[in-house]
């Protein structure tokens, strides 16, 4: 009787279970989510954008035709007249006589570096705080969450400016500034998710089996709370790129003013906006596409990992 049930499956259950299972490798939730992800055109577009962005950043010296700081074409530039796209300079020349295309290509490195490092810093600190609050609850939770609330009550960009101003003009301070802004987002997200999972039946089951508290937190609660954190991570990466550009636009970026950076290119282009609007559009487009790539993947991930679509 019982074996019949296994072989035949039940209506509404995962159909003919065992017959198919022999050929199919055991599917974990992660693998199923990946499967759903690659079938989503939005996710594919996002992944293509991200891949282009990452490849460009890695192979910038091979792709860019010139050095981003080479200003040998200064003689072609006259005030109010900047050479547009040509066969030699695909995106034209900027007011300081540099090749715009090369600068955009190299700018990807900077953006990716800031995005990844600030995300990693912010996520690690936020996750640590979130685990602390979510695992212990009680007064630990209260203290940690009030601290996070204080961080959250300061407007993000303002806070980043203050940090950058305090730590001085450097890439490190930009990364720290963006990381600090992201800490409360991760902390709150993870803590809330963990508190929700802590009341789940499988946690109760683990407790009744005599599993230790720390094993329950790290083996059950945390892995099951992590999905939204991953989604938030990709979305935050997009945001970090935009924030880095924003800070650079406000003049807070690396100490070397000639370094290629999309945000700073926007600032520079401001002065010549009427005569050469394209100089602002290129870096703007680069920022938008990079951020769009991460956002698309993040949103598709959220959908793919959503238990509502699980079957």
């Amino acid at each position, binding site marked *: 009787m*019982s074996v019949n049930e296994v072989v035949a499956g039940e209506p509404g259950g995962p159909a003919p279970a065992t017959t198919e299972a022999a050929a199919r490798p055991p599917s974990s*939730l992660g693998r199923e989510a990946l499967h759903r992800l690659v079938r989503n055109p939005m996710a594919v577009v996002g992944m293509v954008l991200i891949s282009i962005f990452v490849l460009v950043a890695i192979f910038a010296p091979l792709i860019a035709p010139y050095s981003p700081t080479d200003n040998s074409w200064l003689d072609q530039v006259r005030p109010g007249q900047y050479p547009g796209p040509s066969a030699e300079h695909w995106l034209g020349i900027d007011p300081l006589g540099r090749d715009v295309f090369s600068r955009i290509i190299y700018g990807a490195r900077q953006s990716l570096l800031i995005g990844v490092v600030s995300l990693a810093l912010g996520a690690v600190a936020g996750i640590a705080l979130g685990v602390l609050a979510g695992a212990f609850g009680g007064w630990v939770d209260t203290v940690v969450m009030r601290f996070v609330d204080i961080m959250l009550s300061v407007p993000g960009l303002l806070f980043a400016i203050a940090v950058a101003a305090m730590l001085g003009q450097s890439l490190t301070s930009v990364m720290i500034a963006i990381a600090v802004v992201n800490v409360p987002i991760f902390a709150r997200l993870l803590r809330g998710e963990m508190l929700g999972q802590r009341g789940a*039946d*499988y946690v*109760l*089951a683990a*407790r009744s*089996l005599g599993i230790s508290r720390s094993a329950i937190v790290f083996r059950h609660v945390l892995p*099951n709370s992590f999905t939204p954190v991953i989604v938030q991570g990709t979305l935050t990466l997009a945001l970090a790129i935009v924030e880095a550009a924003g800070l650079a636009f406000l003049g807070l970026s690396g100490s070397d003013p000639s370094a290629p950076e999309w945000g700073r290119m926007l600032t520079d282009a401001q002065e010549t906006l009427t005569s050469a609007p394209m100089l602002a559009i290129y870096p703007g487009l680069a920022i938008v596409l990079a951020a769009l790539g991460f956002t698309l993947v993040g949103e598709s991930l959220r959908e793919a990992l959503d238990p509502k679509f699980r079957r």
Partner: protein
Amino acid sequence: MSLLEVRDLEVHFPIKAGTLFQRTVGAVKAVDGVDLDIEAGTTFGLVGESGCGKSTLGRAVMRLIEPTKGSVKLDGQDILSLSERRMRAVRRQFQMVFQDPMASLDPRQSVESLLTEPLRAHKFPGGSAGHAKRVRELLDVVGLPESVVNRYPHEFSGGQRQRLGIARALALNPALIIADEPVSALDVSIQAQVINLLKELQERFSLTYVVIAHDLAVVRHISKTVAVMYLGGIVEQAPSADLYRQPLHPYTKALMSAVPVPDPNVEETRSRILLQGDLPSPANPPAGCRFHTRCPWKQASRCDTERPTLRELPLVAPGHKVACHYAEDILAGKITPHEVKPEEVELTPAAEGPGSIEATEAHVAGGLTPGGPPGAR
């Protein structure tokens, strides 16, 4: 000696108010003074409608919810006084089977991992080879093929998942299994399979069961003794056959009369007791007998002032206990039922206390649903 001995168990969830400084303004009395004696090798059924505290009682006995008062002795050992570390070691002796098998299995754990976990936690002998052997043994015991070890809970059907839950509960060779609504989330066709599996396992491993359910038929089928719970207290307890043949407490009578009879002639003529009004709030239970607000046999004296204790009525059958002042008179027909006007139930938001007062599950057949036709007796 009983395997499980529970004395005067109370679980009160505090109701807190205040934004900055919280103070306790009351308590939801989910379980309010329960005694249990469960003998080894038997099945004890616990029935009652949603929100009566039966799940909370089960969890408090397992110390998954800390009771506020009372004692729980398992095999003579008072488990409420144990430290957390000692408690973890004792947990291997009693296990729980949950209502929703999907929710009680970690979706990220493969079958192998979820069955090995308790073995590792309690250092089951044999090392990893021994654990692997034990996992296959357990799967065999609950009727699942060995080939499922690498699969995940979402790949199984409801009945199969419940089998996994049972296998996990059996992993450490417990003496007592508390099954909280073990079949109510399953299709009727699968319910019988799981119940029969439970019975078979009981014989094979001489297990003791506490089965918590709202389905009277399930409990009758499986239990030796049945207790009926109402608003945090046990109102009647008797050997299964006696209770179903001759319920003494008015609440039990109402419950039993709600069970349909599979004979159209009997079904048409039999009298049914429809209770009026809702279950009172456990945050503010009625004084005296908890049931007096809805009792068709309520008398002018004692019922609303003095809380009846669970006492044995030896004239009926040995072991038949009831918590009603007038049980003898009702039995003898000296008191007849009368109309009951539904009393307003005070709705406090705290009625949904922390933990397990289920609010949405199906009711004990039809008769208890609030808002039934008035005076339909």
